[in-house]
């Protein structure tokens, strides 16, 4: 029996889109019976939302004041206890899952399979290494639970036509008090979410300042796109860290990615490999970004981007 537990990611109010992608990955495991665990303070609303994830048979709602904000050291022992009834425990390869799941894996005495991009069998997976420069097939040891994180850019979320039931559970484990959540300073934006947007416009070091970055935002708004950035642009303080795209930022798979004033360093390209179409604007015709771009335009971004914005608006 293959029983998969998917750990839901949420902010206490809404389910993160990453959960539907984890369920999609779980559903690719032959014969999987899939449950989703919602650990929260008062997870009713999130659990209800989760019941509609297609392909799952049950939502397990675990309420505890200590779960108000996801702290890995607090969540991991609860999940490790739940895990006894499952063959597979999956979480998203977002900062939430990347923080939490290895702690769960260690408590279960196994290594984690990080960044699953394809399921080949119940214990056989493909994952990228060396910033995506190689893809390996890994075989998890038989007879042990499989703990994995799911690479977000590799899966489309399942739809919300499901009708699973919710079961409330309480888990009797001692929870540590040595780690305390203080605050989250979240960027507020009414633009589409970078990780799920179908269109993304990104700017690089060439923008030169946060004021100049405004032209990227205006172009994005003209086509309803999310905004991203290269590490150089984030490091220089033009935009906040959550906008970084790449190996150490967000790995995304939009339909359309427009890279502006970004050279195309390998660590940046790691983040956009799965984009369906890449457009690049750069003044250097030899910039490596043009090696992967479907459409390239050479020239000064300060002239071309406003022109493009006008053309797309009209």
């Amino acid at each position, binding site marked *: 029996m293959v029983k998969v537990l998917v750990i839901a990611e949420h902010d206490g109010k809404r389910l993160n889109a990453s959960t539907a992608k984890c369920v999609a990955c779980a559903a690719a495991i032959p014969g999987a019976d899939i449950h989703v665990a919602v650990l929260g303070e008062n997870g009713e609303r999130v659990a209800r939302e989760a019941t509609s994830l297609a392909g799952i048979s049950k939502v397990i709602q675990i309420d505890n004041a200590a779960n108000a904000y996801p*702290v*890995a*050291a607090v969540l991991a022992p609860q999940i490790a206890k739940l895990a006894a009834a499952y063959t597979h425990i999956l979480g998203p390869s977002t*900062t939430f899952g*990347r923080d939490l799941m*290895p*702690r769960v*894996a*260690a*408590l279960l*005495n196994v*290594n*984690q*399979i*990080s960044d699953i991009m394809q399921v080949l069998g119940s214990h*056989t997976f493909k994952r*990228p*290494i*060396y*910033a*995506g*420069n*190689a*893809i*390996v*097939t*890994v*075989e*998890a*040891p038989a007879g*042990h639970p499989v703990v994995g994180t799911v690479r977000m850019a590799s899966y489309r979320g399942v739809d919300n036509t499901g009708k699973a039931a919710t079961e409330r559970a309480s888990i009797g484990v001692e929870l*540590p008090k*040595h*780690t*305390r*959540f*203080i*605050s*989250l*300073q*979240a960027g507020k934006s009414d633009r589409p979410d970078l990780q799920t947007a179908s269109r993304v416009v990104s700017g690089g070091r060439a923008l030169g300042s946060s004021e100049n970055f405004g032209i990227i935002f205006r172009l994005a708004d003209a086509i309803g796109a999310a905004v991203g950035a290269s590490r150089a642009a984030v490091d220089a303080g033009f935009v*906040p*860290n*959550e906008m970084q795209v790449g190996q*150490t930022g967000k790995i995304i798979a939009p*339909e*359309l990615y427009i890279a502006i004033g970004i050279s195309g360093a390998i660590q940046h390209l790691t983040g956009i*490999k799965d984009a369906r*179409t*890449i*457009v690049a604007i750069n003044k250097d015709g030899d910039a490596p970004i*043009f090696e992967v*771009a*479907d*459409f390239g*335009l*050479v020239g000064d971004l300060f002239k*071309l981007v406003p022109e493009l914005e006008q*053309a*797309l608006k009209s």
Partner: protein
Amino acid sequence: MDKILVGLKRVVDYNVRVRVKSDGSGVETDGVKMSINPFDEIALEEALRIRDRGEAREVVVVSIGPSDAQQQLRTGLAMGADRAILVETSSAPDPLTGARILLEMVNREKPDLVILGKQAIDNDNSQTGQMLAALWGRPQATFASKLALDGTKATVTREVDSGLELLEVDLPAVVTVDLRMNEPRYVKLPDIMKAKKKPLDQIALASLGISTGAVASVTAFEPPQQRQKGVMVSDVAGLVAAMKDKGLL
């Protein structure tokens, strides 16, 4: 605090474009430049700054790997670490075994703080710090971009998908660092000379009595799908037409 332990992994330098061998048996690592994992360099830099501010007495660097990893430990000593430990293994272990070995080092050295990289750029696992914290039963603060110490506590700024999170942890704790934490110093020639005299202990893995658990095996290597180079357009009108043609607008 007394002591900070820093993990330094020897990895293929981040500038090397790694390629899968044509027979699919692995990646080409012969003759390529090896370096300290870039995140670990940042971890060490942070530890050194803490010590140099007078908030810690000693910084110890640990590497688990083949004897060649001494080079990276010497670089760490040249950067300013006080002591180095090499746990000698035939190749770098899986994350769980690595975490068990680090736990043994923690039990011997009793550090107040362990700083690791958020991930090793070869296997991109991003597991070791979290696993060490779990096995040790201590706090973890991963993907840190800022670290402030206050007696028996640390306040850590973490780079998370939605922004910046502030976490308070009791010490001892494990912190894994992200790239924006600091800018590592350059090593100067006199420092390299001085580093030759600093202690570097070598410990054989067998002497630790750590058994490796069930490990996932890699059964195949393949290159990623390559994107094709597309077309160059000559102006904005051409770009808009091309995008419309492909149904993108």
